[in-house]
């Protein structure tokens, strides 16, 4: 499988993270998204007319939606799936227009109504916090149960990167515990702005 990848993209990181957690090898093809706009080049548009990243190719299959890619990667891994995933995959996609947009505005100068993007991001964080808090009342740490699924992996990057877009994560204790649980998963990998748990790297 080949992932057309941009290292600072939250959606590309979703795919790299999922593959790492599964132990599935990916061939990475770096795309100069910024400043080169290579994702809009004729070669890339031939592969993905939408002109977006990530793109995953697996033989003749070409997938250009990160939720579809997560489903594809876990097709033979039912332990990473839940009947409750779809609504959180939709929630994760919607984050691109709030927290994700605020981050792209702050980090690489995207045009955006930044106040509106941040306000929508805060609303999303409140929704997530309320849900994760209720999960904790039932002794569950992840979005759909006691184990992580593609729902968690889809939501994690834009949530964890919220501070890059000027949105604080400080007031959300259940989100913090959920992020820590994800960062503690065997095989977890980093991206710029999301570091591993240092205390796990060098245990006493």
């Amino acid at each position, binding site marked *: 499988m080949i992932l057309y990848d941009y290292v600072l993209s939250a959606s590309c990181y979703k795919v790299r993270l999922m593959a790492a957690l599964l132990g599935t090898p990916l061939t990475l093809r770096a795309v100069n998204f910024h400043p080169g706009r290579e994702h809009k080049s004729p070669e890339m548009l031939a592969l993905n007319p939408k002109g977006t990243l990530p793109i995953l190719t697996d033989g003749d299959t070409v997938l250009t939606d990160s939720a579809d890619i997560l489903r594809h990667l876990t097709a033979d891994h039912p332990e990473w799936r839940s009947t409750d995933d779809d609504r959180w995959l939709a929630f994760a996609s919607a984050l691109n227009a709030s927290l994700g947009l605020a981050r792209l505005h702050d980090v690489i100068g995207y045009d955006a109504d930044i106040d509106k993007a941040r306000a929508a991001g805060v609303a999303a964080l409140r929704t997530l916090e309320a849900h994760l808090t209720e999960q904790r009342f039932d002794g569950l740490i992840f979005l759909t149960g006691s184990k992580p699924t593609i729902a968690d992996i889809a939501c994690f990057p834009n949530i964890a990167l919220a501070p890059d877009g000027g949105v604080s994560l400080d007031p959300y204790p259940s989100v913090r515990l959920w992020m820590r649980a994800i960062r503690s998963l065997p095989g977890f990998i980093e991206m710029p702005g999301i570091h591993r748990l240092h*205390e796990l790297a060098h245990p006493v």
Partner: protein
Amino acid sequence: MDWIAVGLKEDVPPGFVIPSRIADTELAVWCSPSGTYHAWSDRCPHRGMRLSHGFVRGETLACIYHGWQYNEAGSCHYIPAHPKLTPPDTICVPTYRCIEAGGVIWVSLTETDTPLPALGGRRTVRSLPVSMSAPDLAAHFGAAGFTTIAVVSDHDVLLAVQPCTDGECMIHALAAPDADRSAVSHWLEDLRATLERVPA
């Protein structure tokens, strides 16, 4: 100043450090592996990095930047780049009074003889941010102060209010021990929606 709630015990388990604040004072609140809570100034004396980005190692809090470790008194006791050096006493983090009681982490920025707030046997439910100042929130309920505000409600809710900024506070909510926590959580979401519609 009175005791201020800065978080709930179940949100800061042993080995955790979190960022918090009381008005303009930024705090690193952490729990040692043995279960003792601490509230410190959120700056490493070395290079000013936020200690809340750091990590708990043994009974110390370590800075993420250069790994300087501070013991439970806030004194630097280990500098990884100079492993044989005994750090001088002058390298220390300002610490504040911090006590966990009733499932709530309480901090006083000054020495105080004030007893901890009475919680009336209630149990903690959750913390949530509200976009209004702590004094405005207290005024909404006609309360004299915001340390704790008892709210007449089905769930016998008590709010411990943490002032954060001019437009933001955290409320740490407790309720009757037999209350349905999900029901209280929904009630709190509704309360916040009501409060935030109140014109400033």
